């Protein structure tokens, strides 16, 4: 059973998402972003209609991504658990809502133009994480 967060977990979600017609149907995109879970950093690359790769990165790697989403491990865990019990992230659990409601936000970027890519593709990014619904996960 894949552990969150790990490359194995993100790769499993990646395969599930890429096989989901609704994910591809949201349209083409071109972005890379980081997921920051405590000290752990994962980079995801999206291109055309799929998530093409996931990789572990270090703090310096955050300078190369369009943006990154940062939450404490417990927050990520409850986010994933919510998706698994609900099937999809409801309105209170979209990244956009979490960013608006958390005091410092969860969306970070070193570049305002590249930060805009979150808004350009946020439904695709959300749908990617919805694919975690069917991925058995340990923490």
């Amino acid at each position, binding site marked *: 059973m894949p552990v969150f967060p790990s490359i194995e977990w993100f790769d499993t979600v990646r395969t599930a998402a890429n096989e989901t017609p609704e994910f591809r149907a949201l349209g083409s995109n071109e972005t890379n972003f980081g997921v920051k879970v405590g000290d752990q950093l994962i980079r995801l690359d999206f291109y055309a209609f799929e998530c093409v790769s996931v990789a572990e990165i270090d703090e310096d790697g955050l300078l190369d991504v369009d943006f990154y989403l940062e939450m404490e491990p417990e927050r990520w865990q409850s986010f994933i658990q919510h998706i698994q019990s609900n099937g999809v992230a409801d309105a209170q659990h979209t990244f956009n809502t979490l960013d608006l409601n958390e005091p410092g936000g969860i969306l970070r970027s070193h570049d305002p133009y590249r930060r*805009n890519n979150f808004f350009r593709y946020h439904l695709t990014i959300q749908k990617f994480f919805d694919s975690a619904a069917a991925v058995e996960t340990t923490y």
Partner: protein
Amino acid sequence: MSTQQQSLEAVKDYADDYDLKLDWLDTRGEWGIKATPDARKGLTLEDIQTGSYGEVPDHTDNMTGRLRGAAQREGAYRTGGYTVRTKSDIWLTNAAMLYEEALQRQWSSATDIPWDTIKPLPDDVERAQCQLATFLTEVEFVAADVPGKWVAATSPDYFEPRMFLITQIMDESRHLDVFRKRAFANGGGLMQRPDVTTSGVVGSIDLSKDFTEMSSRLHISGEGAVLTIFRMGELMAYNEAEKYMYRLCGQDESRHVAFGVMHMRYLAETEPERKAEVHAYLDEGERALVAGNQNPAARDTAQSEALAVLLGGGQKHYDEGYKKLLAIRKRQSREYIQRIKSAGFGERFENGRANPELMEYAKA
């Protein structure tokens, strides 16, 4: 000699024998182009910006509707009254990519919005929603109307940004229709039209005589502010249908903003002597951001009051809603400042030129 050349020679011999004129066969642009599709995206506009076809002239006097790279024809009519004939007036590095993205990320207001999730709402909330929808339909009308004029004014040599504008017109038309549909979906209807949407500052978008002047008003000031509103839609939606409206419109809007930022960045880099003029447009845009009718989160308008009702959860909680509205203004102002810095005009926030009220909102 290749088979192809042999057959061409045979056709020419035949033409000579029978006195046929086939000189058009030799009149052509660069030949031998073999564009390769991207393995994942397919054959995109970027893939065909190749050889001389990818070379965009700094200035063009092509007034005939001849597409870039096609051979000229003597005697062609000057069918286009193009005023945009200088590359830096309209160019950006990634218009082709944004165009393809727009095509791939279209959606339908008829079928992609879960309309059946809209249930009866308290009257004050429904009226506020309809007031906001009335405002947004008119704003979206302007946002489609204005680029429309610039499409016809742009030389075919700059067809990539021109075609992006056509996708924007489609997007804005859909935004107009989705908010109009919302106004009619739950027992309400349209409310009073906003005071000065097609005059005042929004009207001035339409009076722009220069593309960058228009773009700074439309893509940067106007749509940037609307993007923040859509992003806050999560907080003021009362059902899944409204949430989806805002989310889907937000994706489109951020693409339009991206166009504006990248165009301004291109202009700042290639024609820095025009920066002073752009700062003057931004002065005006900032005044509108804090007090104009183009921004529903600006102060003292029917739509800003509607927003406060929606954010608070009804007229009774107006004060609470107003506090959330102030938070929206702060975010709008901060996002605007970041956007302008990214576009290459950040000096205005260092040298005291930026609107002081806007700077206060950002700090608040």
